[in-house]
């Protein structure tokens, strides 16, 4: 059977259209060949997809991308993406990312970590990066769990990562969820282009250990876009919204004040 | 058990050191402090002339190793001047602004160079050698000294003049027979004294005295005697003996005549304050009069008596100790009764 013959049966179908869209977007160039080790059905798959879409949309070539990951399920993220990857340790992803960015301002640096990593032992790194408005993107995958440690609850409980990031002083704060990878990818693309410290929270179900709180079913029901009329330049409004509505997705806050790299 | 006593002795001569040793033997735990404004360890004062002549070094002058005081836990405060005593509060005030509390105080301040009032006007021109510091200073200057005039006369001056002659200096001695110290020179003694000095090589002027001293325009001094003799000198030594060093005690309420007046137990008129050595005038109840003494053995004896009384024993100074001092072959009694 020729390649053409194999492809032919799906020509004209929805699947074929999607494949063509993917091919044109260039996002395949951001996927590594390593099979992901996340559980089947895990939200991380969608987050990885959103990352590739965001990077492609932001038009950052893979060799300019640096993915830094700490511990836990997020540690696999650099392996499943194409780009320069740095394995860090629990709690150090943002600090390592900061060092990479400080030494190489020409690179686009993304730190990926779970809520139990970046908000807990990595909290100092979050504050420090926010304090100097360092142009790196922190992608916090919030599943409220330590998925690799038998699903222990996150040490920071149900603290809202976005509120924490806003209070620390992030100049871009967006929230998306893994069930809408396109929307999440758009937020990530904005973050990658942001000239200051950007925090993107990706809410993601842990299908193995969380049967109650952040489940696919609940999230599909609860999820809404940022209400029309919200002013992303209004930090107080963004904080209020982030606190009040845990399942709002979109850019809640963005300050394009021209703050550049501060050391 | 810790003794509450803090014996403070002002002075670092023979009386003071003997007293400190006796106090330590008598009280193992008491604090004992020696305070002296002289900045040297206990030394042989009578050997200063040897030091000047270069036949003795500073170490040779030391009476004992400084470790003695550490071993016996005697705190030495040297080069420190007591400016005031508050006998009510029992506090000594030191010049460098430190307070020292005592429970019992012994004054062994010794003497300081005496200068007859008629010579006060010239005191800036005179050289005296009472302490090692004086001797040190003089030794530094020796090379520039050729002619020396010595006025007055006392035990120290004779030794010193001899030493200077040995160093090749031309020494003229104006012997002040009226104020020779510590004894009066009888006519026979004067002749013997003059002869001995002459034999050493000193030019003696027996019946002359200093009339005037002024700095010489070309350096040194111009000395005029009463007889009208004019002498050039690079150094004018004034030696009129010692006067008790008690000026700083004026105003404390202590009875002071020439020295500190103490009873036969060496107690002053103020409680817990005693005196011994050259600075003390000791009452003799039998004679109903005071006596003074000079010289090392006498000072040691009085220091010991004072210490015993400080320790609570009751020991009178007794008869004036009979002792003698030798200088240049002449032996004089160093203890004598003095009309007050």
């Amino acid at each position, binding site marked *: 059977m020729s390649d053409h013959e194999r492809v032919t049966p799906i020509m004209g179908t929805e699947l074929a259209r999607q494949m063509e869209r993917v091919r044109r977007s260039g996002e395949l160039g951001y996927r*590594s*060949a*390593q*099979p992901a080790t996340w559980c089947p059905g895990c939200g991380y798959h969608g987050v990885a997809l959103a990352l590739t879409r965001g990077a492609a949309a932001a038009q950052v*070539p*893979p*060799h*300019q991308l*640096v993915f*830094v990951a700490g511990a836990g399920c997020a540690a696999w993220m*650099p*392996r499943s993406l*194409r*780009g*320069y*990857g*740095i*394995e*860090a*340790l629990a*709690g*150090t992803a943002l*600090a*390592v*990312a*900061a*060092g*990479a*960015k*400080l*030494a*190489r301002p*020409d*690179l686009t*640096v993304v730190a990926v970590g779970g809520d139990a990593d970046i908000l807990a032992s990595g909290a*100092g*790194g979050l*504050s*420090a990066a926010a304090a100097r408005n360092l142009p790196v993107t922190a992608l916090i995958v919030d599943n409220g769990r330590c998925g690799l440690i038998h699903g222990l609850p996150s040490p920071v409980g149900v603290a809202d990562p976005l509120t924490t990031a806003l209070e620390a002083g992030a100049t871009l704060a967006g929230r998306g969820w893994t069930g809408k990878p396109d929307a999440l990818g758009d937020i990530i693309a904005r973050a990658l282009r942001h000239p200051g410290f950007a925090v993107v929270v990706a809410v993601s179900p842990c299908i193995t250990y969380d049967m109650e709180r952040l489940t696919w079913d609940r999230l599909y029901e609860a999820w809404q876009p940022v209400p029309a009329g919200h002013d992303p330049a209004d930090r107080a409004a963004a904080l209020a919204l982030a606190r009040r509505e845990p399942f709002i997705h979109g850019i809640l806050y963005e300050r394009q004040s021209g703050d550049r790299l501060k*050391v | 058990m810790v003794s509450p006593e803090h014996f403070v002795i002002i002075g670092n001569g023979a009386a003071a050191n003997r007293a400190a040793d006796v106090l330590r033997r008598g009280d193992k735990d008491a604090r004992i402090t020696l305070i002296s404004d002289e*900045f*040297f*360890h206990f030394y042989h004062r009578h050997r200063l002339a040897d030091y000047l002549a270069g036949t003795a070094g500073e170490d040779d002058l030391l009476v004992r190793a*400084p470790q003695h005081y550490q071993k016996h836990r005697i705190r*030495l*405060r*040297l*080069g*420190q001047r007591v400016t005031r005593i508050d006998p009510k509060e029992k506090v000594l*005030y*030191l010049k*460098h*602004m*430190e*307070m*020292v*509390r005592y429970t019992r105080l012994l004054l062994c301040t010794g003497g300081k160079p005496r200068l007859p009032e008629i010579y006060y006007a010239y005191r800036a021109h005179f050289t005296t050698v009472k302490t090692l510091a004086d001797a040190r*200073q003089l030794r*530094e*200057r020796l090379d520039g000294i050729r002619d020396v005039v010595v006025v007055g006369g006392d035990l120290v001056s004779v030794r010193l003049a001899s030493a200077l002659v040995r160093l090749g200096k031309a020494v003229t001695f104006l012997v002040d027979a009226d104020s020779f110290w510590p004894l009066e020179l009888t006519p026979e003694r004067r002749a013997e004294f003059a002869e001995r000095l002459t034999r050493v090589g000193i030019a003696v002027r027996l019946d002359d005295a200093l009339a005037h001293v002024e700095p010489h325009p070309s350096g040194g001094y111009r000395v005029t005697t009463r007889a009208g003799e004019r002498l050039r000198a690079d150094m004018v030594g004034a030696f009129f003996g010692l006067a008790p060093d008690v000026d700083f005690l004026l105003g404390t309420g202590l009875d002071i005549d020439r020295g500190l007046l103490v009873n036969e137990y060496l107690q002053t008129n103020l409680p817990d304050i005693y005196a011994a050595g050259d600075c003390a005038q000791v009452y003799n109840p039998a004679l109903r009069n005071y006596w003074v003494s000079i010289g090392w053995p006498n000072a040691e004896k009085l220091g010991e008596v004072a210490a015993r009384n400080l320790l609570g024993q009751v020991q009178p100074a007794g008869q004036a100790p009979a002792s003698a001092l030798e200088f240049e072959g002449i032996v004089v009694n160093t203890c004598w009764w003095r009309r007050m």
Partner: protein
Amino acid sequence: MKVPRRPLTGDLVVCFCGRAGDGARAAGRVLAIAAAGLGLHARHAAAYPAEIRGAGKTLAYTAITREPLRGPCERVDVLVALSDPLTIPELPRLNADGLVLYENNPPGYVAEDMAVAGYIAPGMFGYGIPFRDLAAQAESFGRGRNFVALGAVAALLDLPAAAFPPAIADHFAGQAETVRAAAVRSFEMGFEYARTRLVATHPWRALPAPDERPAVALVTGAAAVAAACAAAGVRLVAFYPVTPADRIRADLERLPADERPVLALAADAAAAAAHAYGAVAAGRSAVAVTVGSGLAAAGPLLDQAAAAGLPLAVVHVQTAGPAAALGTSTGQGDLLAAIHGLSDVQRPVLAPACTADCFDAVCLAVRLAARWRTPAVVLTDFLQMERGETIGWPRPLPAAAAALAAATPAPDEAWAPPGTPGGERLVSAGGPDKRSGATEAVASCPIAVGLHRGRLNALAAGWAPPEAFGDDGPLDLGLVAWGAAIEPAREALRAAAARGLRVGGCFPRLVWPLQRPVLTAFAARCRVLGAAELNASGQLAGLLEHALARPVARLGRAGAEPLTESELLAGIEEALPPADAKGKRHE
């Protein structure tokens, strides 16, 4: 009448002693700057408590000589009491004919035994100076007691007054003009007071400056580290703000902008290591500065860097004790911690002996890290960082560093830095990952550790032989010393040799990995082998015992106060085998 004043031979050591805030350190530093400006060699160091806490004692030592300083100075010639009660315990350090300057007009009488003047022994020279009154006359707040005292010291030592205003200006560079002017006025008051009242009777003075001025500058270890970072082309220096890392930062900030690395202020010591880790992973050379317990915090990332083959250089400042409260004193207790992390990997450790060494060690560490793809630790200590020393300056890059730079890493270990198209890879403790997007299995950790170990062995084999003391003959005692212990050890051996003892020394700057062939040969010549270091357990001694399979005498003690020549000399004599009747020593 002026007494002829004899110049002191050898070192002249001045110690300013006071409470934190009395300005002892400033006075000591200005004296050193002024002496260096006169063409003399100078060294200054201080021991002091945490600065803000304030109540503790500060001792600032300044040594002035005509010849380059050889070792630490134990004895003090001039003791300046800015606080009487704190100075009294220092009097035993004073030379027999030493000079003590003290306040002679305190606000009131002081209690018994609380005045320095009460302890001055015969032979010493005690001069009371109204520091407070003179300082108040110099400026309204009267804070310049330290500079009044400095003025008196300068007058008594016959140092020209003109050398000091520029030194004061140098010290207060960047601060308000009024501060500098007040300090200069205070200095002049003290100088004039001593010149008119005290100098005439004082018998000794400092050596006059030589006619020919040496080409030296007063440099602290911290400044040497900063300059070395620039010289070695370091792109990023990361540190957590703690003394004396702040000194290194301050010195880095003084560098010209085009030479200056990026300074990354980290949230903690682990973050400092993380910043440097990120920078090296991004393909740039980086240094993390850690102090005291910070090395432990940075440890996990150092281990990760070792396994991942990342050239992360750490400048670690050893302090005494684990606690921050003891942070501002010196020690050598971190050797084992510097070598061994928590995992099975080890780190090469370079330990400088002096300020010039600090420069060299940082250059070498950065270059060897790049050459051998390993983290490297420069093990300095608090004293070295704070101590200022006149050395030839600017200092060229050591030849060995240039040689390391010329030697490229083995081809299979070379990897493209981020930003290189097609070179995408993963920096992982799983070992070098040669994939470029292919499905290649991740290298295992044992492979990474094994590779790293091999790199260290190759590194040790190619390293220049260590400094040696003494001849090549058999020795009754051989002493191995590292870091700050080298200077006192060298002087102690010199003194021991002068007493006719057969002693020798081996002073490696590369402390780990051990240069086994050299050490084995040295040990074979020694009846007794000893190790000098400022720690109580004998950390190098233990490593040597293990490597050489023979006992090693421990010549050391717990940190805080630096090791001295005299205590090491005593240790040498104690460790020597007893002599028989023919004078031969046996074990």
